[in-house]
């Protein structure tokens, strides 16, 4: 169950490229200098360190200083501003865990891959979809002026460092879930009777699907 999200204030780090895949956000094979790190279980310190590992470190494990996540001015950022189709590719939820472990709670992009977007909501991260030009403008603002962005989920609004407000669209079901830190499982378990009825009907109608086979 995720921590509720209603308001968020902090700086934004821009990584303005399209089609950033989850292999890039959360590399599957560990860089050779980090032998211990493998797919799956990792503490949150390592999760944060491995975020964008192939873009953040050289082959020998030195920080690449020009990569935004490594720049001193972006340390502590809570927002990530990025390109279209962010989070495409693998379903690995570690991409979201790594962003969260590093400190990101809201990602702003022209579009998101669907599995990634669902994984965000499940972990209390907000993906905000804005028009391409607006995203570029925000990225410029974040890199030239710096300053804090402010999110108000109740109002569906985002205040830029320059003070101007942007409203964004979010499915109501998702907004409620984020604001309450909704636990989908607990909620669905209330519908157990309907689920059982579905299976019972299925066994009669489509026995080849719902039979109790000895697999």
């Amino acid at each position, binding site marked *: 169950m995720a921590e509720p999200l209603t308001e968020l204030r902090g700086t934004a780090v821009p990584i*303005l490229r399209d089609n950033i895949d989850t292999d890039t956000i959360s590399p599957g*094979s560990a860089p050779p200098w980090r032998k211990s790190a493998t797919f799956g279980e990792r503490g949150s310190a390592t999760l944060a360190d491995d975020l964008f590992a192939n873009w953040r470190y050289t082959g020998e494990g030195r920080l690449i200083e020009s990569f935004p996540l490594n720049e001193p001015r972006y340390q502590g950022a809570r927002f990530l501003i990025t390109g279209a189709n962010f989070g495409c590719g693998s*379903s690995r939820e570690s991409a979201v865990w790594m962003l969260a472990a590093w400190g990101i709670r809201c990602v702003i992009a022209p579009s998101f891959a669907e599995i990634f977007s669902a994984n965000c909501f499940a972990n209390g991260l907000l993906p905000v979809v804005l028009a391409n030009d607006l995203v570029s403008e925000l990225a410029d603002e974040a890199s030239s002026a710096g300053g804090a962005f402010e999110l108000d989920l109740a109002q569906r609004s985002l205040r830029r460092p320059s003070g101007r407000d942007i409203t964004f669209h979010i499915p109501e079901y998702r907004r409620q879930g984020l604001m309450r830190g909704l636990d989908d499982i607990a909620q669905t378990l209330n519908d157990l009777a309907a689920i059982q009825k579905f299976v019972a009907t299925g066994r009669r109608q489509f026995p080849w699907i719902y039979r109790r086979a000895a697999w």
Partner: protein
Amino acid sequence: MSAKTLFDKIWDRHVIKDLGDGFSLIFVDRHMVNDMAGRGFLTLNKRGLPVAHPEFTFAAADHTVATLEARKASAKPDDNPYAVNLRDNSRQHGFRLFDLDDPDFGIIHVISAEQALALPGTTIACGDSHTCTLGALGAIAWGLGQSDIVHILATQTSVQRKPLNMRINVTGRLAPDVSAKDLILALAAELGVAGCVGHAVEFAGDAIRRMSMDERFTICNMAVEMGARFGLISPDDVTFDYLRGRPSAPDADAWDAAVADWRSLATDATAAFDAERTLDASRVEPQVSWGINPGQTIGISATIPSLSGQLTGSALATYETAVDYSGLVPGAPIAGTPIDIVFIGSCNNARLSDLRVAARVVEGRRVASGVRAWVSPGSERVRREAEAEGLDQIFMSAGFGWGHSGCSMCAGAGDQMREIGASGQRIASTTNRNFVGRQGPGTRTHLLSPAMAAAAAIAGRIVDVRSLEAIGG
């Protein structure tokens, strides 16, 4: 009743509750679990929840299993913590595990079809984005993350938002030696990696109808590479013939009723789609990806695109990253690019028919010196069938390694894989993703068909398989 699409018919059958705002609670008929689900089980067990429907839950540790010589070692319980974890959970919760030494073990999307666990009209979920492969049987099959996995384990349902419907009509006939892989790569190039976001994509048209199930799996497998969470094909006689007699197919007494139902699921002739696209299959030549996503793909006769002058902003940054990472020169031909490794495997392109095609290309030839090439069959069953036909001997006499089944070098996650692909090395691969570092840090992946991969192994560089004779490979 108004005309409906295949997707809508299956979806409507599985809605348990309307959650408003386009979201529904959907019943999951088959939950396929891989060895990346460890954290999901941890959460489930911590909450003290049982697996709600173990009889609809199936598992295989395909991602981390060793597929080369080290296979025997990693089949031992203590050497692969991911497989051990899955084994423990299957015992605790009572679901069917295809264990590492099971004769039916394999890549989960391959064995789901082989065993007929996936059937037309079913919903199938798995914590892997290529679950869309199984939509080729006329099913709703999709990938999801750990949190959604836990939800399914605990309830056998999933909260999903209904996507829009898109149809891709593939007309015409593929030229000889041009495969389903070339077709789907050409589509990814044309529509782009975000071309189908928000849609369930039905592949239709003469070219799809003529395809075998193996080819249809290759097509649907890459729906996700165009941004679609779901790819599917209306079931027909090819589908039914494929399923007949498989281990979990309907019994003889239920078969006719099942087939009648499956026929009724096909998209109605007058059903409306939210979006339609068309591709002429006869225009497609063998394809090769050059960049860092599957949309960065060109025909074998083409040159690396020069786009610096045409793109701006984030699109330009992506293109420049791709050119830089690929080490290729805009304007130069892709053909002739030397390669270091050839990998024939993965849930995209390692079924029996794929191995047959590749074997035909390498038969009587030798892998070029300095190239490391090997085959990892899609399942142990494919491996046995291939061996019965002598394909293993053909590959091995040509200098290929003959491995076991698993994800192997597709994800670079198998335990021995990260030692194989050294930084900067180029891989001709029958897989589905060419992301940065996908097959090991610093490796460069070129996606292509089994025939093209086999040809690359022989020539030591990327070549048109159709010209292999001419160059005396």
